[in-house]
């Protein structure tokens, strides 16, 4: 409770100082918008539906692309960990592509898919897939062999061993890979939305971009705030439950 109050006081002070500096006209109002104008823009954009629409468009791209990335990446990671041939082929490709910032896929994606949703999904998926694959692969490789031996003596075989022992034992790695994939996907989607106009829907990145074109710094700062809030919420909703589970079960060291 004390902590919450402290945090609130801190942010109120921050906003007050910001507003004061703007009123003192330390900088040109074109360069630094006042917090009130930022708030006004948010209210306006919410009222006319621009903001909700942009958030919806962006989140749909992010969640669908991220989901696809996991859906493909996690099983492929199991395959590269299990089969030498996959390790030497797909594993090597994954290592390479993981180092490539996925926004670098945008030119190719535009060429293949045009200025459409598919191009955006492709970029987001590429940001997620390789991290998920490599994390799963690492996780499976670091499972202590004694777990598998113990499970086998209790009658566990094949698929059962994979789904009940190897995958759960790799969870600490898989979760951190999923987090990294999410960060990559989110960043690359914002970069892509800012620098390419996608005709099928205007996301948050586009709003940010138009803010700049219109010299509307209140819009730019407002969108930046929204992006921050979405990032924080996603972390809380998507990953906190998993991290709490890891912490509870594994204790402090591995989670």
């Amino acid at each position, binding site marked *: 409770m004390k902590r919450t109050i402290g945090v609130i006081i801190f942010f109120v002070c921050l906003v007050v100082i910001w507003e004061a500096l703007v009123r003192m006209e330390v900088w040109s109002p074109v360069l630094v918008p006042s917090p009130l104008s930022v708030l006004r823009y948010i209210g306006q954009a919410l009222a006319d539906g621009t903001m909700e629409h942009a958030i919806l468009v962006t989140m749909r791209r992010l969640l669908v692309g991220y989901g696809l990335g996991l859906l493909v990446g996690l099983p492929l990671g199991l395959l590269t960990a299990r089969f030498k041939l996959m390790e030497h082929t797909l594993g090597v490709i994954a290592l390479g592509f993981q180092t490539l910032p996925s926004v670098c896929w945008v030119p190719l994606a535009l060429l293949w898919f045009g200025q459409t949703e598919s191009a955006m999904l492709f970029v987001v998926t590429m940001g997620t897939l390789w991290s998920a694959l490599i994390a799963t692969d690492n996780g499976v490789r670091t499972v202590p062999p*004694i777990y598998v031996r113990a499970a086998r003596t209790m009658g566990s075989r094949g698929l059962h061993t994979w789904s009940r022992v190897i995958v759960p034992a790799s969870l600490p790695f898989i979760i951190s890979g999923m987090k990294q994939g999410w960060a990559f996907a989110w960043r690359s989607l914002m970069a892509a939305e800012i620098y390419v106009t996608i005709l099928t829907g205007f996301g948050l990145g586009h709003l940010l971009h138009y803010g700049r074109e219109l010299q509307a710094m209140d819009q730019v700062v407002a969108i930046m705030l929204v992006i921050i809030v979405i990032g924080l919420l996603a972390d809380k909703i998507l990953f906190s439950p998993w991290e709490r589970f890891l912490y509870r079960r594994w204790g402090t060291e591995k989670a």
Partner: protein
Amino acid sequence: MTPDTPKLVVENVTKRFRTRKGEIHALDNVSLAVRETEFVCLVGPSGCGKTTLLNLIAGLDLPDNGRILADGKPVAGPGSDRMVMFQEPALFPWLDVFDNVMFGLKLKPRLNNKERTEVATYYLELVGLERFMYANVHELSGGMKQRVALARCLAPNPRVLLMDEPFASLDALTREQLYRDLQAICQKRPKTVVFVTHNVREAVCLGDRVVLFSPNPGRVQEQFTVDLPRPRDINSVDLAKHATEITRALKRHLHPDLTEVAE
């Protein structure tokens, strides 16, 4: 299977391991037969192949030469009729204590969930951990973890128990309690047990038969029948006498390795 057929047969088994430092001759032409419901202790210094033999019987590894039979059938892989308790607890950190014990039970299709829950609870009570049923593995002490591991391998009621120095890491009091419990369990639900240890007293306390191993390469040196009445107390004088005799034999066989022998 006739009553005379041994439960487990080890026939001229040889096993080598290739390591970076060269080849290790873990077992050399080892033969052993274990009767149904017999409790056999394998004793010897570290590196004499006892654990290797246990893994072979478990089916976790295959012999280079010779064969291993369980119920007269060659062992081709692990099976839940031969449950293993390892040196380390090997509990699953993603499950709580109760679900760890349930793991093996869930692989027994003949039980329904109510029965499984009852069995798991029964064995957790038996090892004195009923208050820790829903604890996480990392919250338990080393001794408690090993007791969960014991409950986990007893719960599916295997006919054969293969135990690899399971009590080595426990404190003396807990260990003595478990000696009593293990004897009681074997009395109530007769099991064939192969128990690896380097503690001669432990072997005499638990075993119907003590098999001495010598290292480099691992061989069976001598066998002793222990016909003390049960339940046995590890601190009894009779037991100490037997242990002394076996320890003497062990030292005789392993002259150069005296220091390795416990007790």
